[in-house]
């Protein structure tokens, strides 16, 4: 047993708790901002199935494996699955949400630059999980 004072340890634990409180507060705040879906965001239905993504725009347009969106608009993805759990991921825009059969998950984003980005699946779904990919095309706004 130690016979010496433990005050360095108390200070250390207090610092650790303070750090964790800071992390928690920052994360809470950032999540609050990120989860706020703007009103008027255009809905895109995303369906994951083994082993490809399909998309349906508000106006009924459907796309398979590719998604065309416009710069500067806000989009809300409603994500579903037809079979097993997948996870819809546009890594460049930090968009990630599971596609769970039996429920609809939502995530939103507003692309800021014209370009092409990868869409990938981020939840193991079997044989072709590794290649369940697509492409996001962000295009100029059509006036």
């Amino acid at each position, binding site marked *: *047993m*130690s016979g010496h004072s*433990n005050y*360095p*340890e108390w200070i*250390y*634990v207090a610092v*650790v*708790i303070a750090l*964790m*409180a800071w*992390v*928690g507060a*920052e*994360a*809470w705040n*950032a*999540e*609050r901002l*990120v*989860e706020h879906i703007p009103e008027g965001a255009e809905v895109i239905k995303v369906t994951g199935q*083994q082993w490809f993504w399909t998309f349906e725009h508000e106006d009924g347009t459907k796309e398979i494996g590719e998604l065309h969106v416009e710069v500067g608009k806000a989009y809300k993805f409603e994500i579903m699955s037809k*079979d*097993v*759990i997948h*996870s819809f*991921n546009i*890594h*460049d825009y*930090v*968009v*990630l*949400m*599971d596609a*769970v*059969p*039996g*429920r609809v*998950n*939502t995530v939103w984003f507003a692309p800021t630059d014209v370009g092409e980005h*990868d869409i*990938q*699946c*981020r*939840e*193991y*779904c*079997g*044989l*072709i*999980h*590794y*290649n369940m*990919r697509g492409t996001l095309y962000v295009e100029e706004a059509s006036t």
Partner: protein
Amino acid sequence: MVLELEKPRPIWQIMFSTHHTDIGLLYLISSLAFLFLGGSLALAIRIELFAPGAQIIADSMTFNRIFTVHGTTLIFLFIIPFASAVGNYFVPIMVRYKDMAYPKLNAIAFWMIPPAAALVWLGFADFTWYAQPPYSIISAPGPAADMWIFGLKILGVSSVLGAINFVITILKCKHPDMSIGQVPLLAWSFLATSVIIIVAIPTFAAALLMLLTDRLGVSGFFNPAMGGDPIAYSHLFWFTFHPEVYVLVIPAIGMMYEIIPRFSRKPIYSYNSGVFAFVMLSLVAFSSWAHHMFATGMSFTEKTVFMVGTLAAVPASAMHVFNFIATMWNGRIKFSTPMMWAVGGIALFFAAGAGGVVNSAMPLDFSTHDSYWVVGHFHLFVMGTIAFGSIGYLYYMFPYVTGRMYNETAGKVHFFMSFVGTILVFFTQHILGLFGMPRRIFDYPPIPEWIAMNQIASVGAMIIGVSMAIFLVNMIYSSGKGQLADTEDPFGLGGKYYYPFEAKNPHH
């Protein structure tokens, strides 16, 4: 001493024995065999991922099976049995009792492992070590899936039986002159781990049974087509397996509590803090499970609750780090092989924990979920902390068990190569995850950054592989032909090497 290779005991005597040292030895040999088997699978994975395109593995299904069995083997057939080996061998000695509380039950718990392992390996399921439905119900090929389920059922029962034995032995069978506040910290770590196991495992046992009946089609717990909810499985699974990761790490930290004070030639800075931290950790282990589910569509409030629960575990882990650092302070440290492994393990434990804090910050999970960041993070725990602590302890107990010394130079080379290799593989994988590479993928697009980092990781893995080969040769050769060790003080530390109560194996 139980492993005398000069005058070998009949193998059947060890196999049918119920004495805790023999059972400890059985767990030890079995767990090390699976370390090498599971590790070989890891090498296969890293060779395959060295570059885009198929290298040595023909198709993605084989790859998927390999990583599933790799994870299942190393967690359930190496880490947990290795801890059982150490616990069985030393807990009775530490509490000064003649054996474990229930010796026959102990033997039964061990012997459940070979058939369970056979089921896992002969089946070679592909659905990852989580077996997440609906994939594991509607899409995973049987009979591999069903064999895995049965295998894990058996392993769960084995764990619980062992845990019951530890709890009773430590609390009820300890020597009358020994108060609970004098029980060594390694024994406390087994007490904490065992309590977690008893509380957490039954949930998974239920989930496994439900998964099986779902697969058979007689129920629909997790199958949406039958009105079930796959997320229910996630809750049940993670309610067990988040505490389970503490089950994995707590004994390794306990083993470091044996090594670090002795090699620093002073007692532990604060025994009470060590006990408190173990108990806190075993409680807080249960408050964070759904941080594994942040991407499933949970509400903001739910995620906040689990983030707070996750962060709450950090101070307790941090107390152990402080304890070790404060113990080494003002010591006169001998850096023999066991001490190197223990100190390296603590450094990597900190790195692992820091990465975990990042994951738990909710929005950051959108960047890191199911990417190589997670792979790097948890491997820093299971390899960097647990394997390092376990291997260090193995070197430490080598003279005790065999009466001989291993080759010290080879031991140090093993450490340095593994340390460098672990950093090369797992630190790199954190960055790889930030660049977006998902986990559990057989192949990847030829993105230059991904290729470069995968190659660095594969080189690191090869370095670890070579060091493990050196380790294997060292262990086998030294057991039979190593220099005879001074069993009073094999490391020349000046203190007592081990507890005054000798293990009296009735067969000697």
